């Protein structure tokens, strides 16, 4: 990796972290305001809202300091470069996005079609996406999907008396 690429990656990482500080800062301010609305108790000095206020106040201070330090560290033009490189980053991480997309669909579908069917299709689809596109890989994927969907449900219901969702 060239020094230039490494430098660009470092800058992109710093911009991403700066954005995360700002998002967390916004969230902390909103939750601090929400915490101040928690009714106080006549039985104790602090009340239910005091600890959250303390935590969010500390978070706001720390995130403000981190944001300022991060802004000072970044050179001019780092932000436009970051947005330019975001497409390539997303392409590089396509499998991670696939995993989360499949997981989201799987968890949503489970309450409708039950654990067995949803897990079978989740495993099959995800293994096909992640694995090599060959016949042996497909056979392994099917076996794995059957074992971890039908087999796992059988194990939990008979051995551990835990009944996984059956769907509507």
């Amino acid at each position, binding site marked *: *990796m060239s020094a230039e690429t490494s430098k660009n990656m470092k800058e992109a990482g710093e911009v991403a972290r700066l954005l995360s*500080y700002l998002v967390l800062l916004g969230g902390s301010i909103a939750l601090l305001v929400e915490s101040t609305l928690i009714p106080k108790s006549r039985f104790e000095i602090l009340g239910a809202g005091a*600890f959250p206020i303390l935590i969010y106040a500390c978070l706001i201070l720390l995130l403000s300091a981190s944001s300022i330090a991060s802004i000072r560290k970044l050179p001019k033009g780092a932000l436009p470069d970051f947005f330019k490189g975001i497409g390539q980053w997303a392409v590089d991480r396509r499998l991670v996005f696939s995993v989360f997309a499949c997981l989201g669909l799987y968890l949503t579908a489970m309450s409708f079609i039950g654990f067995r069917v949803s897990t079978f299709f989740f495993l099959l689809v995800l293994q096909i996406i*992640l694995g090599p596109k060959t016949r042996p890989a497909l056979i392994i994927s099917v076996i794995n999907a059957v074992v*971890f969907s039908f087999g796992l449900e059988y194990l939990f219901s008979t051995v551990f008396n835990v009944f996984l969702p059956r769907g509507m």
Partner: protein
Amino acid sequence: MDAFLIGAAEVLSVKTLIFMFIGSIAGIIAAAIPGFTVTMAIVLTLPLTFTMQPLQGISVMLSVYVGGYTGGLISAALLGIPGTPSSVATTFDAFPMARKGEPGRALSLGVWASFFGTIISTIVLIFAAPPLAIFAVKLGPWEYFSLIVFALTIVASLVGNSLQRGLVAALIGLAISTVGTDPILGRARLHFNLEVLEAGLPFLVVLIGIFAISQLASEVEDANETSSGHAIIDRKIEFHTWTVMREVLMRPVNLVRSSIVGVVIGALPGAGGSIANLLAYDQAKRASKTPEKFGTGIADGVVASEAGNSATAGGGLIPMIALGIPGSAVDAILMASLMVHGISIGPRLILDHADLVYGMFVAMAVSSLMMLMICIVSMRAFLHVSEVPKWVIVPAVLVCCVVGAFALNNRITDLYLLGVVGLVGYSLRALDYPLAPLVLGVILGPIAETNLRRALMTDQDMTLFLTRPVSAIFLVAAVASVLWAVRAHLKSKPSQTPPKDTPS
């Protein structure tokens, strides 16, 4: 003595031993797969222990724990990839030794060093935990609050590349713990009228999401590597088991020193096997007459690193049993497993449930013996585990995570929460936020809040936190810990700056 015998009888029952045997194998296999940590193995074991007796459940988890610390050695020695973060230093000498044609000796050295490391840490645990617990019973809410402040500063300063992000992660963990009902009056707060948040965020769902889901997602970042598998370097492996045992015992100073380093590091909240592994290796190198040979495949390096990381298992249990404070994320899960069974963790644990605590001591010793036997008999078979490709393992373990999260409360909403927490965990991991402080923040948050409010309900004088000697010592230690971390952070900064004219 009665309590010891009751605990020992339960651990040594046939049913428990069978479960522990399976647990040891599962721990070794899980940790042998690169990228899969001991923490993840323990998290996945947890739902399986819900239907067991408390001691039986925790014995199984301890067997996974002890097995897991050894399993990381397999891929570290044979592939040069640490199976777990706690095997990083193991690769320094075990891998070169394997490369030089002695993979069996490297594995045997690691297994024996792990065994002796665990036994030494268990002996220290047996002698250190009870007196510390008796002392801890005398502490008030002021001391407890200060202790947790100290624990949190250690967590943030020892984990990760950035002190700021370590502290932010710990505070996010504390913030998560404030959602739901408050621990003193039970008043609802910060739930935004969402049913899933009303009872608070379930600790174990957060744990599985933060550690396991994010780790699994990060495993598939490299598209080319994901669809391929790894090959073991040499099929002709000779273990020389008994010769190697003598070889390990001929290094008593290195073995004991590394184990003590592991115990001490394990006992510090937040510092775990990964730090002990590196520190024990570093200490062995400094004390050696031939430090230049370290890194070329010498036995001292393997013994130090493996004894160091395995000894953290016993060390981490000291603050958990004595003070009710988890020494690491794994200890936090062990603590949670007892809480699931309605057993409150704290200094009274050893007084109220002595049989359980003594049973844990016995379980530690039995686990290490079991690990040793399994490794000696079936090490060759375990080597195949390192060959399982990620595209098979990742989806299957994801399903195990989903089942684990559901089995806790039988609530489908917990699964949605798992998905969201997993996504947040992956984002934080990708942004280089350390995750261990976050999880410890979640578990320490309610203890900190309860003791802070209890202290001020008892006496409104805030200066008591500073005027009570033990509380003051903890607060001074917390300040010192932060200052030390800031100093270490500033010192490491110049060395992190890349040289300007690096050739491409």
